[in-house]
């Protein structure tokens, strides 16, 4: 029986076990939206396509499924771009579906036409322009396969509107066969043996865990490995949660915004074992220097990451979980007691000194207090800026996936929609979005999405009336010549929240933290808590 391309697209999503999608309609995607009415797939209407992409990302990160977002052609498609690029940087499996003008009009600059495959080509894992309705089932199958296997990432499918109305005999392929795409999962045994030997002869090994550990679901085996051989662990921003934040072997986040002990460990190690991290400049900017004196082991599913930013003594390509599993069995011995002792001294220097203030809320104290009140299954989602780093270093993430942030691209406006996706993916969890006043305003209208879907998302605004992190850069590197970082005429966030029907309040000193957090977390309703933060408060 023949069905339309739009019906086929919906059917293919169903066959991929997609149950929730995020999007925003328009003329060029109307046939799809029409077909969606006959499906059980739940659609969340966000307030901006960027919100849809970020929500799909947050949803993916808590469910482990491929997030799906949908937009119309032209402006709808371009609004998705930041979300796609964000997912690419953080290796989040995502399928983005865009409408396109009809095939015969492509290339003529007609109404709402944009070359979205060309535009997204540099920052998505792969993309398709569907030119024949018969290809649609294969393309959808391939897209989900590519997005979720190997190093995960976003894949875009651009579907001209006449392809959506054209008809086909729908047969969904069972398997994909893409000649040029065969990810390698099993680590090379010879390389694993070499690592085992290197660990055995190392005095000061360190594991550096990146986001790849979480996406490979390798957190547990990594933690067990670290425990068995007593190897300390540092994490990148994306690796937070890979090992419990309060685990005695966790030295914390490394890098320019990291903590003392983590950086001390990396600078004094004789064997750095990097797992699922892309050695970004913020985290391991000095990796080249480390490499001069220490051995560097790099484990990654993406061969192109290895040797890209740091020369590697022992490279291993494959799935972090499988490799660490093999390694767990292969290491003979490892004596790190002296090393751990010296790190314990360093850890003492991690302790933050809190400033005495009476007219502000201290964000570090606030986040530490929040941690105490959240259960293990709570999820913290951040915006970008000082708020993100305060959360990274002071929220105690106990489980993989409990700390969600735009680590790779550093996208302001990510937190609120990603929090929405997270809450929809894990409705039973308490989801707290932490934002600065600047980044919160980039996605503020998504409060409408929260209201419409009755989502009990908690929003914590750390309001310093500044683009705090940029202000800090200008303070330290531009001799306090402050340029365009003042948000003095911020709206009354409490009133805005009330307009959306949220409970809301504002606090402005540390003594209010306790009781405010109590109310904030009391029930499962949306709540906005605005906290006055000292504009002079430092990031680390």
């Amino acid at each position, binding site marked *: 029986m023949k069905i339309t391309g739009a019906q086929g697209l919906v059917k293919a999503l169903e066959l991929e076990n997609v149950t929730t999608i995020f999007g925003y309609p328009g003329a060029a995607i109307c046939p799809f939206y029409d077909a969606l009415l006959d499906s059980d797939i739940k659609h969340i209407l966000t307030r901006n396509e960027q919100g849809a992409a970020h929500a799909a990302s947050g949803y993916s990160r808590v469910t482990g499924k491929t997030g799906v977002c949908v937009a119309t052609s032209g402006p709808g498609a371009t609004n998705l771009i930041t979300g796609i690029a964000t997912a690419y940087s953080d290796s989040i499996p995502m399928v983005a579906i865009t409408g396109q003008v009809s095939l015969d009009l492509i290339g003529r600059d007609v109404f709402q036409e944009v070359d979205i495959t060309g535009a997204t*080509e540099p920052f998505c894992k792969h993309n398709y322009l569907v030119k024949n309705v018969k290809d649609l089932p294969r393309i959808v199958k391939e897209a989900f396969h590519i997005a979720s296997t190997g190093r995960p990432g976003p894949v875009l499918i651009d579907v001209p509107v006449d392809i959506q109305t054209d008809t086909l005999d729908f047969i969904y392929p069972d398997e994909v066969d893409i000649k*040029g795409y065969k990810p390698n999962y099993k680590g090379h045994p010879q390389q694993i043996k070499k690592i085992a030997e290197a660990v055995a002869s190392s005095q000061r090994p360190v594991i550096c865990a990146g986001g790849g550990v979480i996406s490979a679901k390798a957190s547990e085996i990594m933690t067990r490995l670290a425990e068995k051989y007593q190897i300390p662990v540092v994490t990148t921003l994306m690796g937070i949660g890979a090992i419990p934040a309060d685990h005695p072997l966790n030295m914390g986040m490394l890098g320019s915004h990291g903590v003392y002990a983590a950086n001390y460990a990396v600078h004094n190690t004789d064997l750095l074992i990097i797992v699922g991290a892309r050695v970004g400049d913020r985290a391991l900017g000095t990796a080249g220097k480390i490499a001069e004196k220490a051995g560097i082991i790099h484990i990654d599913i993406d061969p*192109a990451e290895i040797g890209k930013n740091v020369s590697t003594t022992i490279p291993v390509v494959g799935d972090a979980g499988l490799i660490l599993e093999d390694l767990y069995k292969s290491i003979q011995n490892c004596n790190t007691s002296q090393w751990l002792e010296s790190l314990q001294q360093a850890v003492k220097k991690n302790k933050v000194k809190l400033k005495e203030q009476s007219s502000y809320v201290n964000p570090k104290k606030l986040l530490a207090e929040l941690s105490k009140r959240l259960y293990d299954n709570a999820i913290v989602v951040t915006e970008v800026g000082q708020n993100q780093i305060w959360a990274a270093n002071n929220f105690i993430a106990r489980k993989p996936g409990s700390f969600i942030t735009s680590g790779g691209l550093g996208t302001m406006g990510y937190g609120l929609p990603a929090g929405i996706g997270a809450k929809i993916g894990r409705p039973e969890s308490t989801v707290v979005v932490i934002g600065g006043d600047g980044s919160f305003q980039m996605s503020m209208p998504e409060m409408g999405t929260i209201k419409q879907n009755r989502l009990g998302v908690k929003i914590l605004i750390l309001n310093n009336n500044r683009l705090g992190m940029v202000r800090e850069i200008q303070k330290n590197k531009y001799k306090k010549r402050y340029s365009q970082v003042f948000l003095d005429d911020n709206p009354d966030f409490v009133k805005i929240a009330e307009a959306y029907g949220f409970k809301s309040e504002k606090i402005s000193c540390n003594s209010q933290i306790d009781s405010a957090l109590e109310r904030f977390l009391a029930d499962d309703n949306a709540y906005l808590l605005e906290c006055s933060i000292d504009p002079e408060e430092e990031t680390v």
Partner: protein
Amino acid sequence: MAKHILSVLVENRSGVLSRVAGLFSRRGFNIDSLAVGVTENPEVSRMTIVVDGDEYTVEQVSKQLNKLIDIIKIRALEDSDSVSRELALIKVNATSSTRSEIVQIVEIFRAKIVDVSKNTLTVEISGSGDKVRALEDMLRQFGIKEIVRTGTIAIERGNKYIKAGSTEEM
């Protein structure tokens, strides 16, 4: 900096060339030349890419290219173990007094004259990049009007060949 030749099998689809070219510009790699043509299998094209750079660059180029879904296989060709050619058409000024000298030079290079007009000769030459350059140098004295070059294509010597599906050696 040295030149490295990469032989790359790709899906014969629209968009692949722009993906490859885009990757080079975005990652700051220098392409010296890029030649594309379909292979014995109509679904597969071969790109011969000449890259200017050190070992690190070539490794990065290969790894990043490998990430593209449309790329099927990549092989770096060793100079000593491969044959490479470039084709050029050179349109040079020719007067009654210089014509015979040009013809002589063309013969020495085993090139061909493929078009003649009152004031010009068009020479076709195929060979290594060096050979093409040498002829160009010789012809420059007469005044070159136009040059078209294809960029390098290359193939491995002997029984080795690169195929989609398997890289075989007989």
